[in-house]
Protein backbone atom coordinates (compact mmCIF):
# COMPACT_ATOMS: atom_id res chain seq x y z
CA UNK A 1 0.00 0.00 0.00
CA UNK A 2 1.32 3.38 -0.92
CA UNK A 3 1.30 6.26 1.52
CA UNK A 4 -2.18 7.63 2.31
CA UNK A 5 -2.96 10.77 0.39
CA UNK A 6 -5.79 11.86 2.72
CA UNK A 7 -4.96 15.40 3.84
CA UNK A 8 -7.74 16.51 6.17
CA UNK A 9 -11.42 17.04 6.74
CA UNK A 10 -12.46 20.36 5.26
CA UNK A 11 -15.62 22.40 5.81
CA UNK A 12 -17.57 22.69 2.58
CA UNK A 13 -18.79 26.12 3.63
CA UNK A 14 -15.97 28.08 5.28
CA UNK A 15 -12.97 25.93 4.29
CA UNK A 16 -11.76 25.35 7.85
CA UNK A 17 -9.65 22.17 8.00
CA UNK A 18 -9.74 19.52 10.72
CA UNK A 19 -7.58 16.50 11.57
CA UNK A 20 -8.85 13.06 10.54
CA UNK A 21 -11.19 12.22 13.41
CA UNK A 22 -14.73 10.90 13.84
CA UNK A 23 -16.38 14.28 13.36
CA UNK A 24 -18.68 15.64 10.70
CA UNK A 25 -19.66 19.26 11.30
CA UNK A 26 -17.63 22.45 11.27
CA UNK A 27 -17.42 23.88 14.81
CA UNK A 28 -17.45 27.40 13.38
CA UNK A 29 -20.28 27.49 10.87
CA UNK A 30 -22.01 24.07 11.17
CA UNK A 31 -21.05 23.30 7.57
CA UNK A 32 -20.57 19.62 6.61
CA UNK A 33 -17.03 18.24 6.49
CA UNK A 34 -15.54 16.60 3.42
CA UNK A 35 -12.43 14.43 3.05
CA UNK A 36 -9.76 16.18 0.98
CA UNK A 37 -6.69 14.59 -0.57
CA UNK A 38 -3.19 15.49 -1.80
CA UNK A 39 -3.61 14.16 -5.33
CA UNK A 40 -0.11 15.27 -6.30
CA UNK A 41 1.31 12.42 -4.24
CA UNK A 42 -0.31 9.96 -6.68
CA UNK A 43 0.97 11.53 -9.88
CA UNK A 44 2.47 8.87 -12.11
CA UNK A 45 1.88 6.11 -9.51
CA UNK A 46 -1.85 5.45 -9.68
CA UNK A 47 -2.16 4.02 -13.18
CA UNK A 48 -4.75 2.05 -15.13
CA UNK A 49 -2.34 -0.90 -15.13
CA UNK A 50 -2.00 -0.87 -11.34
CA UNK A 51 -5.75 -0.73 -10.87
CA UNK A 52 -6.39 -3.49 -13.43
CA UNK A 53 -3.85 -5.75 -11.69
CA UNK A 54 -5.91 -5.75 -8.48
CA UNK A 55 -8.90 -7.91 -7.43
CA UNK A 56 -12.26 -6.85 -8.85
CA UNK A 57 -13.67 -5.09 -5.77
CA UNK A 58 -14.31 -1.45 -4.90
CA UNK A 59 -10.96 -1.44 -3.09
CA UNK A 60 -8.95 -1.50 -6.32
CA UNK A 61 -9.24 2.30 -6.02
CA UNK A 62 -8.26 2.29 -2.34
CA UNK A 63 -5.84 5.23 -2.66
CA UNK A 64 -8.90 7.42 -3.34
CA UNK A 65 -10.88 6.08 -0.38
CA UNK A 66 -10.23 7.56 3.09
CA UNK A 67 -8.68 4.60 4.90
CA UNK A 68 -5.14 3.93 6.10
CA UNK A 69 -3.66 0.65 4.94
CA UNK A 70 -5.92 -2.21 3.92
CA UNK A 71 -9.71 -2.35 4.40
CA UNK A 72 -10.92 -4.50 7.27
CA UNK A 73 -14.64 -4.50 6.51
CA UNK A 74 -16.32 -5.37 3.23
CA UNK A 75 -13.13 -6.51 1.55
CA UNK A 76 -15.09 -8.28 -1.23
CA UNK A 77 -17.65 -5.51 -1.85
CA UNK A 78 -18.30 -3.63 -5.05
CA UNK A 79 -17.39 -4.13 -8.70
CA UNK A 80 -20.94 -4.69 -9.81
CA UNK A 81 -21.79 -5.17 -13.50
CA UNK A 82 -22.10 -2.34 -15.99
CA UNK A 83 -24.65 -3.64 -18.50
CA UNK A 84 -25.09 -2.36 -22.05
CA UNK A 85 -28.88 -2.04 -22.19
CA UNK A 86 -29.50 -2.89 -25.86
CA UNK A 87 -33.18 -3.78 -25.43
CA UNK A 88 -33.94 -0.68 -23.43
CA UNK A 89 -32.08 1.43 -25.99
CA UNK A 90 -34.58 0.29 -28.63
CA UNK A 91 -37.60 1.03 -26.44
CA UNK A 92 -36.34 4.49 -25.46
CA UNK A 93 -34.92 5.37 -28.88
CA UNK A 94 -31.42 6.14 -27.58
CA UNK A 95 -28.07 5.18 -29.05
CA UNK A 96 -25.88 4.18 -26.12
CA UNK A 97 -27.36 3.27 -22.73
CA UNK A 98 -25.79 1.46 -19.78
CA UNK A 99 -27.03 0.27 -16.41
CA UNK A 100 -24.63 0.36 -13.47
CA UNK A 101 -26.25 -2.46 -11.58
CA UNK A 102 -25.77 -2.11 -7.83
CA UNK A 103 -28.90 -4.16 -7.24
CA UNK A 104 -26.44 -7.05 -6.99
CA UNK A 105 -23.94 -5.34 -4.70
CA UNK A 106 -22.37 -7.73 -2.19
CA UNK A 107 -23.46 -8.60 0.49
CA UNK A 108 -26.87 -6.90 0.96
CA UNK A 109 -27.91 -5.99 -2.59
CA UNK A 110 -27.66 -2.21 -2.47
CA UNK A 111 -25.00 0.44 -3.01
CA UNK A 112 -25.07 1.08 0.75
CA UNK A 113 -22.57 -1.80 1.02
CA UNK A 114 -20.02 0.55 -0.55
CA UNK A 115 -20.47 3.40 1.92
CA UNK A 116 -20.85 1.10 4.91
CA UNK A 117 -17.66 -0.82 4.19
CA UNK A 118 -15.69 2.43 4.10
CA UNK A 119 -17.42 3.74 7.24
CA UNK A 120 -16.84 0.53 9.19
CA UNK A 121 -13.25 0.09 8.00
CA UNK A 122 -12.62 3.62 9.22
CA UNK A 123 -14.49 2.91 12.47
CA UNK A 124 -12.16 -0.04 13.13
CA UNK A 125 -9.15 2.23 12.48
CA UNK A 126 -10.53 4.73 14.98
CA UNK A 127 -10.88 1.93 17.55
CA UNK A 128 -14.69 1.77 17.73
CA UNK A 129 -16.20 -1.53 18.87
CA UNK A 130 -19.83 -0.61 18.23
CA UNK A 131 -21.36 0.82 15.06
CA UNK A 132 -24.85 2.21 14.53
CA UNK A 133 -27.23 3.81 12.08
CA UNK A 134 -30.78 5.12 11.78
CA UNK A 135 -32.49 3.59 8.78
CA UNK A 136 -35.74 2.32 7.35
CA UNK A 137 -34.22 -0.12 4.88
CA UNK A 138 -31.03 -0.69 2.89
CA UNK A 139 -28.66 1.07 5.27
CA UNK A 140 -29.91 -0.94 8.27
CA UNK A 141 -29.33 -4.25 6.48
CA UNK A 142 -25.91 -3.23 5.25
CA UNK A 143 -24.65 -2.00 8.63
CA UNK A 144 -25.99 -5.11 10.35
CA UNK A 145 -24.46 -7.54 7.83
CA UNK A 146 -21.09 -5.88 7.43
CA UNK A 147 -20.77 -5.38 11.21
CA UNK A 148 -21.58 -9.05 11.79
CA UNK A 149 -18.92 -10.15 9.29
CA UNK A 150 -16.37 -7.82 10.89
CA UNK A 151 -17.15 -8.93 14.45
CA UNK A 152 -18.47 -5.52 15.49
CA UNK A 153 -21.44 -4.86 17.75
CA UNK A 154 -24.20 -2.95 15.99
CA UNK A 155 -27.29 -0.93 16.87
CA UNK A 156 -29.94 -0.05 14.31
CA UNK A 157 -32.59 2.59 15.07
CA UNK A 158 -35.91 2.42 13.24
CA UNK A 159 -39.38 3.98 13.56
CA UNK A 160 -41.34 1.52 15.75
CA UNK A 161 -44.00 0.89 13.09
CA UNK A 162 -41.62 -0.16 10.30
CA UNK A 163 -42.85 -3.14 8.24
CA UNK A 164 -41.79 -6.55 9.55
CA UNK A 165 -39.97 -7.44 6.34
CA UNK A 166 -37.61 -4.51 6.70
CA UNK A 167 -36.92 -5.30 10.35
CA UNK A 168 -36.11 -8.85 9.31
CA UNK A 169 -33.57 -7.66 6.76
CA UNK A 170 -31.43 -6.30 9.60
CA UNK A 171 -32.50 -8.58 12.45
CA UNK A 172 -31.20 -11.76 10.86
CA UNK A 173 -27.65 -10.46 11.31
CA UNK A 174 -28.00 -10.32 15.09
CA UNK A 175 -27.98 -6.55 15.32
CA UNK A 176 -29.69 -4.78 18.22
CA UNK A 177 -32.77 -3.13 16.76
CA UNK A 178 -34.42 -0.25 18.60
CA UNK A 179 -37.86 0.88 17.44
CA UNK A 180 -38.64 4.45 18.39
CA UNK A 181 -42.17 5.77 18.87
CA UNK A 182 -43.02 9.28 17.83
CA UNK A 183 -43.31 11.61 14.87
CA UNK A 184 -40.60 11.43 12.23
CA UNK A 185 -38.91 14.66 13.32
CA UNK A 186 -38.77 13.56 16.97
CA UNK A 187 -37.38 10.15 16.05
CA UNK A 188 -34.84 11.82 13.80
CA UNK A 189 -33.70 14.24 16.50
CA UNK A 190 -33.38 11.46 19.07
CA UNK A 191 -31.11 9.52 16.70
CA UNK A 192 -28.89 12.57 16.38
CA UNK A 193 -28.75 12.93 20.17
CA UNK A 194 -27.90 9.24 20.63
CA UNK A 195 -25.14 9.56 18.05
CA UNK A 196 -23.69 12.50 19.98
CA UNK A 197 -23.93 10.88 23.39
CA UNK A 198 -22.63 7.34 22.96
CA UNK A 199 -19.12 6.43 21.91
CA UNK A 200 -20.17 4.64 18.76
CA UNK A 201 -19.39 5.04 15.11
CA UNK A 202 -22.78 6.24 13.88
CA UNK A 203 -22.21 5.68 10.17
CA UNK A 204 -24.32 8.52 8.81
CA UNK A 205 -23.49 10.96 11.62
CA UNK A 206 -20.02 11.15 13.17
CA UNK A 207 -18.25 9.09 10.49
CA UNK A 208 -20.39 10.47 7.66
CA UNK A 209 -17.50 12.22 5.82
CA UNK A 210 -15.78 8.83 5.40
CA UNK A 211 -19.01 6.92 4.80
CA UNK A 212 -20.06 9.23 1.97
CA UNK A 213 -16.72 8.82 0.18
CA UNK A 214 -17.55 5.15 -0.42
CA UNK A 215 -20.05 6.23 -3.08
CA UNK A 216 -17.19 7.35 -5.31
CA UNK A 217 -16.33 3.71 -5.98
CA UNK A 218 -19.51 3.39 -8.04
CA UNK A 219 -18.25 6.20 -10.26
CA UNK A 220 -14.72 4.78 -10.57
CA UNK A 221 -16.08 1.38 -11.61
CA UNK A 222 -18.44 2.97 -14.13
CA UNK A 223 -15.53 4.74 -15.84
CA UNK A 224 -13.20 1.74 -15.86
CA UNK A 225 -15.96 -0.54 -17.17
CA UNK A 226 -16.73 1.93 -19.96
CA UNK A 227 -13.13 1.39 -21.14
CA UNK A 228 -11.56 4.21 -19.12
CA UNK A 229 -13.90 6.96 -20.11
CA UNK A 230 -16.71 8.89 -18.47
CA UNK A 231 -20.17 8.84 -20.02
CA UNK A 232 -21.57 12.04 -21.49
CA UNK A 233 -24.53 11.76 -19.12
CA UNK A 234 -25.10 9.97 -15.82
CA UNK A 235 -28.44 9.72 -14.01
CA UNK A 236 -28.44 9.06 -10.25
CA UNK A 237 -31.28 8.70 -7.74
CA UNK A 238 -31.30 11.32 -4.99
CA UNK A 239 -32.21 10.89 -1.33
CA UNK A 240 -29.75 13.02 0.67
CA UNK A 241 -28.15 14.04 -2.64
CA UNK A 242 -24.79 12.63 -1.55
CA UNK A 243 -24.46 10.05 -4.36
CA UNK A 244 -24.93 12.80 -6.93
CA UNK A 245 -22.03 14.83 -5.52
CA UNK A 246 -19.76 11.82 -5.07
CA UNK A 247 -20.23 10.48 -8.61
CA UNK A 248 -19.26 13.95 -9.82
CA UNK A 249 -16.25 13.97 -7.47
CA UNK A 250 -15.13 10.55 -8.74
CA UNK A 251 -15.14 11.81 -12.33
CA UNK A 252 -13.19 14.95 -11.45
CA UNK A 253 -10.61 12.89 -9.55
CA UNK A 254 -10.03 10.50 -12.47
CA UNK A 255 -9.58 13.49 -14.79
CA UNK A 256 -7.15 15.13 -12.36
CA UNK A 257 -5.10 11.93 -12.12
CA UNK A 258 -4.96 11.54 -15.89
CA UNK A 259 -6.90 8.26 -15.87
CA UNK A 260 -9.58 9.56 -18.27
CA UNK A 261 -10.16 12.46 -20.64
CA UNK A 262 -12.56 15.20 -19.57
CA UNK A 263 -15.75 14.25 -21.37
CA UNK A 264 -17.81 17.13 -20.01
CA UNK A 265 -20.04 14.65 -18.15
CA UNK A 266 -23.39 16.06 -17.09
CA UNK A 267 -24.94 14.73 -13.86
CA UNK A 268 -28.73 14.30 -13.61
CA UNK A 269 -30.74 13.74 -10.44
CA UNK A 270 -33.87 11.63 -10.06
CA UNK A 271 -36.53 11.82 -7.33
CA UNK A 272 -40.06 10.63 -6.71
CA UNK A 273 -42.64 13.44 -6.96
CA UNK A 274 -43.82 12.61 -3.43
CA UNK A 275 -40.40 13.57 -2.11
CA UNK A 276 -38.66 15.86 -4.57
CA UNK A 277 -37.12 18.82 -2.73
CA UNK A 278 -33.89 18.71 -4.76
CA UNK A 279 -35.42 18.28 -8.21
CA UNK A 280 -37.92 21.01 -7.39
CA UNK A 281 -35.10 23.39 -6.44
CA UNK A 282 -33.33 22.66 -9.75
CA UNK A 283 -36.52 23.19 -11.76
CA UNK A 284 -37.34 26.38 -9.84
CA UNK A 285 -33.85 27.76 -10.45
CA UNK A 286 -33.14 28.29 -6.76
CA UNK A 287 -30.50 26.79 -4.50
CA UNK A 288 -32.64 26.80 -1.37
CA UNK A 289 -34.09 23.42 -0.50
CA UNK A 290 -37.62 23.56 0.92
CA UNK A 291 -38.13 20.62 3.32
CA UNK A 292 -41.10 18.38 2.48
CA UNK A 293 -42.98 15.55 4.18
CA UNK A 294 -42.19 12.49 2.13
CA UNK A 295 -45.06 10.53 0.62
CA UNK A 296 -43.89 8.02 -1.97
CA UNK A 297 -43.46 4.29 -2.51
CA UNK A 298 -39.76 4.99 -3.14
CA UNK A 299 -38.99 4.73 0.57
CA UNK A 300 -35.23 4.48 0.14
CA UNK A 301 -35.28 8.00 -1.36
CA UNK A 302 -37.75 9.48 1.14
CA UNK A 303 -35.58 12.14 2.75
CA UNK A 304 -37.65 15.30 3.11
CA UNK A 305 -34.81 17.64 4.09
CA UNK A 306 -31.72 16.33 2.33
CA UNK A 307 -28.41 17.29 3.95
CA UNK A 308 -26.56 17.35 0.62
CA UNK A 309 -29.43 18.84 -1.36
CA UNK A 310 -27.74 22.20 -1.85
CA UNK A 311 -24.53 20.55 -3.06
CA UNK A 312 -26.36 18.14 -5.37
CA UNK A 313 -28.25 21.09 -6.84
CA UNK A 314 -24.93 22.82 -7.51
CA UNK A 315 -23.31 19.77 -9.14
CA UNK A 316 -26.32 19.34 -11.42
CA UNK A 317 -26.26 22.98 -12.51
CA UNK A 318 -22.49 23.27 -12.90
CA UNK A 319 -22.18 20.03 -14.86
CA UNK A 320 -24.96 21.02 -17.26
CA UNK A 321 -27.36 18.32 -16.07
CA UNK A 322 -30.94 18.51 -14.90
CA UNK A 323 -33.28 16.99 -12.33
CA UNK A 324 -36.66 15.35 -12.74
CA UNK A 325 -39.29 13.59 -10.65
CA UNK A 326 -41.89 10.92 -11.36
CA UNK A 327 -45.17 9.72 -9.86
CA UNK A 328 -45.47 6.42 -8.00
CA UNK A 329 -47.28 4.91 -10.99
CA UNK A 330 -44.41 5.94 -13.27
CA UNK A 331 -42.01 4.33 -10.78
CA UNK A 332 -43.86 1.01 -10.99
CA UNK A 333 -44.07 1.19 -14.79
CA UNK A 334 -40.34 1.86 -15.06
CA UNK A 335 -39.47 -1.00 -12.67
CA UNK A 336 -41.46 -3.35 -14.90
CA UNK A 337 -39.89 -1.98 -18.06
CA UNK A 338 -36.36 -2.45 -16.70
CA UNK A 339 -37.16 -6.00 -15.62
CA UNK A 340 -38.89 -6.95 -18.89
CA UNK A 341 -36.22 -5.45 -21.16
CA UNK A 342 -32.97 -6.10 -19.30
CA UNK A 343 -33.80 -8.78 -16.73
CA UNK A 344 -32.93 -6.45 -13.86
CA UNK A 345 -35.29 -6.32 -10.90
CA UNK A 346 -34.52 -2.98 -9.27
CA UNK A 347 -36.08 -1.57 -6.13
CA UNK A 348 -38.39 1.43 -6.35
CA UNK A 349 -35.41 3.82 -6.47
CA UNK A 350 -34.40 2.12 -9.73
CA UNK A 351 -37.87 2.84 -11.09
CA UNK A 352 -37.36 6.46 -10.11
CA UNK A 353 -34.04 6.64 -11.96
CA UNK A 354 -35.30 5.02 -15.15
CA UNK A 355 -38.64 6.88 -14.99
CA UNK A 356 -36.90 10.23 -14.67
CA UNK A 357 -34.42 9.35 -17.44
CA UNK A 358 -37.37 8.54 -19.75
CA UNK A 359 -38.97 11.87 -18.96
CA UNK A 360 -35.73 13.73 -19.63
CA UNK A 361 -35.19 11.86 -22.92
CA UNK A 362 -38.72 12.83 -23.99
CA UNK A 363 -38.21 16.46 -23.00
CA UNK A 364 -34.86 16.62 -24.81
CA UNK A 365 -32.86 17.27 -21.63
CA UNK A 366 -31.06 13.95 -22.21
CA UNK A 367 -29.83 13.68 -25.82
CA UNK A 368 -30.67 10.45 -27.65
CA UNK A 369 -27.36 10.14 -29.50
CA UNK A 370 -24.85 10.32 -26.62
CA UNK A 371 -23.76 7.85 -23.93
CA UNK A 372 -25.98 7.63 -20.85
CA UNK A 373 -25.41 5.63 -17.65
CA UNK A 374 -28.30 4.94 -15.25
CA UNK A 375 -27.27 4.13 -11.68
CA UNK A 376 -29.45 1.40 -10.20
CA UNK A 377 -28.79 1.30 -6.48
CA UNK A 378 -30.92 -1.44 -4.89
CA UNK A 379 -32.69 -4.73 -5.44
CA UNK A 380 -36.39 -5.17 -6.18
CA UNK A 381 -36.73 -8.14 -3.86
CA UNK A 382 -36.62 -5.60 -1.02
CA UNK A 383 -39.58 -3.53 -2.21
CA UNK A 384 -41.96 -6.19 -3.49
CA UNK A 385 -44.95 -4.57 -1.80
CA UNK A 386 -44.71 -1.68 -4.28
CA UNK A 387 -45.38 -3.85 -7.33
CA UNK A 388 -47.41 -6.72 -5.99
CA UNK A 389 -50.62 -5.50 -7.65
CA UNK A 390 -48.89 -4.63 -10.92
CA UNK A 391 -47.66 -8.11 -11.77
CA UNK A 392 -49.73 -10.60 -13.76
CA UNK A 393 -51.14 -13.34 -11.54
CA UNK A 394 -50.35 -16.95 -12.49
CA UNK A 395 -53.07 -18.72 -14.49
CA UNK A 396 -54.19 -21.68 -12.38
CA UNK A 397 -54.97 -25.03 -14.02
CA UNK A 398 -55.58 -28.58 -12.81
CA UNK A 399 -52.77 -31.12 -13.22
CA UNK A 400 -54.19 -32.09 -16.57
CA UNK A 401 -52.43 -31.79 -19.94
CA UNK A 402 -55.64 -30.85 -21.75
CA UNK A 403 -56.02 -27.78 -19.59
CA UNK A 404 -52.49 -26.65 -20.42
CA UNK A 405 -53.01 -27.42 -24.10
CA UNK A 406 -55.96 -25.05 -24.10
CA UNK A 407 -53.84 -22.29 -22.57
CA UNK A 408 -50.97 -22.94 -24.98
CA UNK A 409 -53.32 -22.79 -27.91
CA UNK A 410 -54.71 -19.50 -26.67
CA UNK A 411 -51.11 -18.19 -26.45
CA UNK A 412 -50.46 -19.39 -30.02
CA UNK A 413 -47.75 -21.82 -28.87
CA UNK A 414 -46.99 -24.61 -31.35
CA UNK A 415 -46.34 -28.17 -30.15
CA UNK A 416 -43.75 -30.59 -31.54
CA UNK A 417 -46.21 -33.48 -31.08
CA UNK A 418 -47.89 -34.62 -34.35
Amino acid sequence: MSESIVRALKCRECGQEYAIEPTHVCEFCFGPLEVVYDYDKLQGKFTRELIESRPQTMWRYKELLPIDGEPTVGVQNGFTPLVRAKNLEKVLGVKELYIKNDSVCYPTLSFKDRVVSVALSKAVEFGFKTVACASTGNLAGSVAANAAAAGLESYVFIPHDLEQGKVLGAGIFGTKIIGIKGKYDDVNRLCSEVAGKYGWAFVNVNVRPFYAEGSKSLGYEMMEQLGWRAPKHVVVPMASGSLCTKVDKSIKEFIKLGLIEDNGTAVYGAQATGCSPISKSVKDGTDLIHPVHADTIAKSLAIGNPADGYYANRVIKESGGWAEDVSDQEVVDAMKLLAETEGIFAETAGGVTLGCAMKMIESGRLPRDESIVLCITGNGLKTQEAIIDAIAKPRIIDANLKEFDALAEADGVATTDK
Partner: protein
Amino acid sequence: MKLRVYLTFDEATVREPIIWKLAKEFDVITNIRTAEVKNNMGLVGLEIEGADDVVEQAIIWLGQQGVHVEPIEQNVIEG
Protein backbone atom coordinates in the same frame (compact mmCIF):
# COMPACT_ATOMS: atom_id res chain seq x y z
CA MET B 1 -26.88 21.07 27.40
CA LYS B 2 -25.83 22.64 24.13
CA LEU B 3 -28.05 21.67 21.24
CA ARG B 4 -27.14 22.43 17.63
CA VAL B 5 -30.10 22.70 15.30
CA TYR B 6 -31.17 23.99 11.93
CA LEU B 7 -34.31 26.11 11.96
CA THR B 8 -36.27 26.41 8.73
CA PHE B 9 -38.64 29.39 8.49
CA ASP B 10 -41.36 29.48 5.85
CA GLU B 11 -43.09 32.41 4.19
CA ALA B 12 -45.35 32.95 7.23
CA THR B 13 -42.56 32.95 9.82
CA VAL B 14 -39.54 34.35 8.00
CA ARG B 15 -40.24 37.96 9.04
CA GLU B 16 -40.98 37.18 12.70
CA PRO B 17 -38.34 37.85 15.41
CA ILE B 18 -38.71 34.31 16.70
CA ILE B 19 -35.15 33.80 17.97
CA TRP B 20 -35.44 37.00 20.02
CA LYS B 21 -38.77 35.80 21.43
CA LEU B 22 -37.20 32.42 22.23
CA ALA B 23 -34.53 34.02 24.42
CA LYS B 24 -37.19 36.16 26.16
CA GLU B 25 -39.46 33.20 26.79
CA PHE B 26 -36.83 30.67 27.95
CA ASP B 27 -33.63 30.88 29.95
CA VAL B 28 -31.38 29.85 27.08
CA ILE B 29 -28.36 31.29 25.31
CA THR B 30 -28.91 31.46 21.56
CA ASN B 31 -25.95 31.64 19.22
CA ILE B 32 -26.55 31.99 15.47
CA ARG B 33 -23.74 30.26 13.56
CA THR B 34 -25.04 30.46 10.03
CA ALA B 35 -28.07 32.00 8.34
CA GLU B 36 -29.60 32.52 4.93
CA VAL B 37 -32.76 34.55 4.68
CA LYS B 38 -34.82 35.12 1.56
CA ASN B 39 -38.31 36.45 0.90
CA ASN B 40 -40.12 33.18 1.31
CA MET B 41 -37.72 31.09 3.36
CA GLY B 42 -35.03 31.28 6.00
CA LEU B 43 -32.47 28.79 7.24
CA VAL B 44 -30.63 29.38 10.53
CA GLY B 45 -27.97 27.22 12.18
CA LEU B 46 -28.48 27.85 15.88
CA GLU B 47 -26.81 26.69 19.07
CA ILE B 48 -29.15 26.65 22.07
CA GLU B 49 -27.59 26.34 25.51
CA GLY B 50 -29.40 25.88 28.81
CA ALA B 51 -30.71 23.32 31.31
CA ASP B 52 -31.78 20.09 29.59
CA ASP B 53 -35.52 20.46 30.30
CA VAL B 54 -35.53 24.14 29.34
CA VAL B 55 -33.84 23.39 26.01
CA GLU B 56 -36.40 20.60 25.40
CA GLN B 57 -39.26 23.01 26.10
CA ALA B 58 -37.66 25.65 23.87
CA ILE B 59 -37.55 23.16 20.97
CA ILE B 60 -41.23 22.29 21.46
CA TRP B 61 -42.10 26.00 21.57
CA LEU B 62 -40.22 26.65 18.31
CA GLY B 63 -42.28 23.93 16.63
CA GLN B 64 -45.46 25.56 17.92
CA GLN B 65 -44.41 28.84 16.31
CA GLY B 66 -44.35 27.09 12.94
CA VAL B 67 -40.59 26.72 12.74
CA HIS B 68 -39.22 23.41 11.44
CA VAL B 69 -36.51 22.22 13.84
CA GLU B 70 -33.94 19.62 12.87
CA PRO B 71 -30.57 18.45 14.15
CA ILE B 72 -27.64 19.87 12.20
CA GLU B 73 -27.34 16.54 10.42
CA GLN B 74 -30.84 17.25 9.03
CA ASN B 75 -32.28 13.83 8.15
CA VAL B 76 -30.39 11.19 10.12
CA ILE B 77 -32.81 8.40 9.20
CA GLU B 78 -31.85 7.01 5.79
CA GLY B 79 -33.47 4.46 3.53
